[in-house]
């Protein structure tokens, strides 16, 4: 019954603009990077609108998630990065509720820029799925009880990338989906959320890619389509079975991930490709392609008929979802890795130097605030319950209006 309720809840998320107080995965509940939250600060500093700031025991480009009043974040530490952390904080107080550590069973080499805790965890509302560059996948309940643990690279020794891996999992019904793309042994797998057993596994193109899977949500999870990039194509698979449904040939971006919104897919690939998904035919069709809407490393955000992409060097470009036309551009500062988040009519863009740039969205983009927080931020923020959570290499920060 609980599972059915959960499935129904997730089915509601099929349309952009998921309503709810959680932020369950990379780029939010519906994967668009947008939140329905409205009452968020446009300015904050050490004394104002910072509810709490807590230290973290390790680094990580992984983003925080928010589930049931808890903020969960992963980290990795140690000279070899093989100490994997899952930390759960009380969202209200910032108090550490629990902290679990794991030993990596797979390869931990990665570019010094990154860390083994690169992948953002995901949640189905009852469980937390923590995934790492070492291809270790652990499931905890919200109280920190280990439900299962998989060492996917322990099982598949050549599944490794010595520059690190970065794909974040997504959850469809009772399946958590991971994408493990590399030169050694590429695959994607659907793992049973309750038991950790493999529901399906498919081989993938043997080449390195760091993007994350996205979901085209159906009316029920059995109709969900998981969308995955490889170097040469975008493919769609039934999320419950892994069955191949369609592909779209393109030199996909290897880092920025496709964004799904309703029955559309926005694929970064030397610009932006807008694809229309036809659930009846189980095909996709190109609607438009716009090279000026290219992405650097951050993924596109899509909300209320507009796309927001950031191309080097830090140029925010707003596009029209109808035809891909460029509506406006705004020059920002610094190298961008973190995918921005959209809430309350503003885009929160965090650059690698830790500068949060707040852009008011409208007929033009207007920079209305800049706040310097921790340096070296690679993680996308999370938005939930009237707060924005920023994760740097050393701290997790909650920004919300002072009471």
């Amino acid at each position: 019954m609980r599972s059915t309720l959960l499935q129904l809840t997730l089915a509601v998320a099929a349309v952009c603009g998921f309503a709810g107080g959680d932020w369950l995965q990379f780029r939010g509940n519906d994967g668009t990077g947008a939140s329905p939250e409205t009452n968020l600060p446009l300015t904050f500093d050490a004394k104002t609108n910072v509810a709490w700031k807590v230290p973290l025991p390790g680094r990580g480009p992984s983003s925080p998630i928010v589930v049931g009043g808890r903020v969960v974040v992963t980290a990795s530490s140690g000279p070899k990065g093989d100490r994997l952390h899952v930390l759960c904080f009380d969202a209200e107080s910032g108090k550490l509720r629990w902290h679990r550590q794991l030993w990596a069973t797979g390869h931990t080499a990665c570019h010094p820029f990154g860390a083994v805790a690169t992948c953002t965890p995901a949640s189905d509302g009852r469980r937390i799925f923590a995934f790492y560059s070492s291809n270790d996948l652990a499931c905890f309940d919200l109280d920190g009880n280990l439900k299962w643990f998989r060492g996917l690279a322990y099982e598949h020794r050549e599944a490794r990338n010595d520059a690190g891996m970065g794909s974040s999992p997504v959850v469809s019904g009772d399946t958590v989906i991971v994408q493990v793309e590399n030169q050694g042994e590429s695959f994607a797998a659907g793992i049973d959320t309750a038991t950790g057993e493999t529901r399906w596994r498919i081989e993938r193109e043997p080449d390195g890619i760091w993007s994350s899977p996205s979901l085209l949500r159906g009316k029920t999870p059995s109709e969900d389509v998981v969308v995955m990039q490889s170097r040469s194509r975008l493919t769609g698979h039934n999320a419950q079975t892994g069955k191949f449904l369609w592909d779209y040939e393109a030199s996909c971006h290897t880092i920025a991930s496709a964004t799904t919104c309703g029955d559309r897919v926005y694929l970064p690939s030397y610009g932006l490709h807008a694809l229309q998904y036809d659930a009846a035919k189980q095909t996709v069709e190109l609607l438009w392609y716009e090279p000026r809407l290219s992405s650097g490393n951050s993924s596109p955000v899509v909300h209320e008929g507009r796309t927001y992409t950031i191309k080097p060097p830090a140029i925010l470009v707003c596009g029209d979802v109808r035809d891909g036309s460029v509506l406006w551009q705004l020059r920002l500062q610094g190298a961008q890795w973190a995918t921005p988040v959209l809430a309350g009519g503003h885009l929160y863009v965090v650059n690698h130097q830790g500068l949060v740039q707040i852009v008011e969205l409208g007929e033009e983009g207007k920079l209305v605030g800049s706040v310097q927080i921790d340096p070296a931020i690679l993680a996308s923020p999370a938005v939930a319950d009237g707060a924005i959570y920023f994760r740097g290499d050393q701290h997790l920060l909650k920004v919300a209006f002072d009471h």
Partner: protein
Amino acid sequence: MRTLLHLLAIVILSEIPAVTTTAADVEPLLKTLQAVGPEGAGHREAALAWEQLAEADVADLPTILAGLDQAGPLAANWIRTAIDAITERELGRGGQLPAAELERFVLDTQHVPRARRLAYEWLCSVDQTASARLIPRMLDDPSLELRRDAVGQWIEKAASLEKSGKNEQALATYQEAFAAARDLDQIKLLAGRIGKLGGSVDLPRHFGFLVHWKLIAPFDNTDEKGHDVVYPPEKEIDPAASLPGKHGPVQWIDHTTDDAYGTIDFNKAFREEKAVAGYATTEFLSEKRQEVQFRLTTLNAVKLWLNGTLIDEHVIYHAGSELDQYVSTGVLQPGRNVILVKVCQNEQTQSWAKTWQFQLRVCLPDGTAVLSSDRDQ
């Protein structure tokens, strides 16, 4: 009425003794966790066992830590997280950890290194003197994490001596730390400090890099097909042979690297080229039969043979590398052993894809070098 029911429930619950896991219960639970395997094998039973184990009394920590001795990498994480839960619960309610027992566990080198390290970290959380008391004795500890901390303390001690102008003592302390160090960052730092004080280190010897080789190249690797082609060196190593190479006959050449980290660079030994394969062979004299690790580092596709048996292979090109990228195990026979490495370069055109090289070292599982008995330097 509702309040009354709540009160009643509280009274009833308070009369029920708390269900805790007793010492006798711990062993079978550990066995269940130790039995988990790949592909989710044993998960259902393990999830139930984990919940019970996490309720164990803190006094059982040494027994549970010892359960890591018989745990594979997957099972170790089940046990470790249960230990986290037990200790966190106890400290959260203001309880104590069994510090004396934890310390005994840390000092008992019969236990696996990661269990001892875990015991040490929980000990440090309740005993702030533990690090200063225990770590200085751990310069040659089998736990590389504990050893690393000891080397770190030695470095601090030497730096302090250096700052006081006691350079001779500082140098000796740095050298002692260098001999014990197994982590690249510490080794590099120590090599620099020792050099600055007029000392010298033999990095290839410290790591166990093989530096004397015979090389032959180029063979064809167009379309990355050469990796699977059995070229003559894979059948027979004849140092005098002239073999058909990619562009004509090729011969073995002697090659010794003076690189501190044992890099054998085919581009330098021959010429920069794409779509090629090269071989390197060397002999290793062992005084006894011994199992050792072969640690390869390369950005190219690679195969490694020991005495004619393929012991490692990776078909990955230019996807990043770090020292000791590939670790394989082999058994050295008493006397002469023949090592053969095949290194394939692909056709990527990026500037960072020119590299055609490898490093190979022979060592024990803790990274201690194993040297050929005829090694001169």
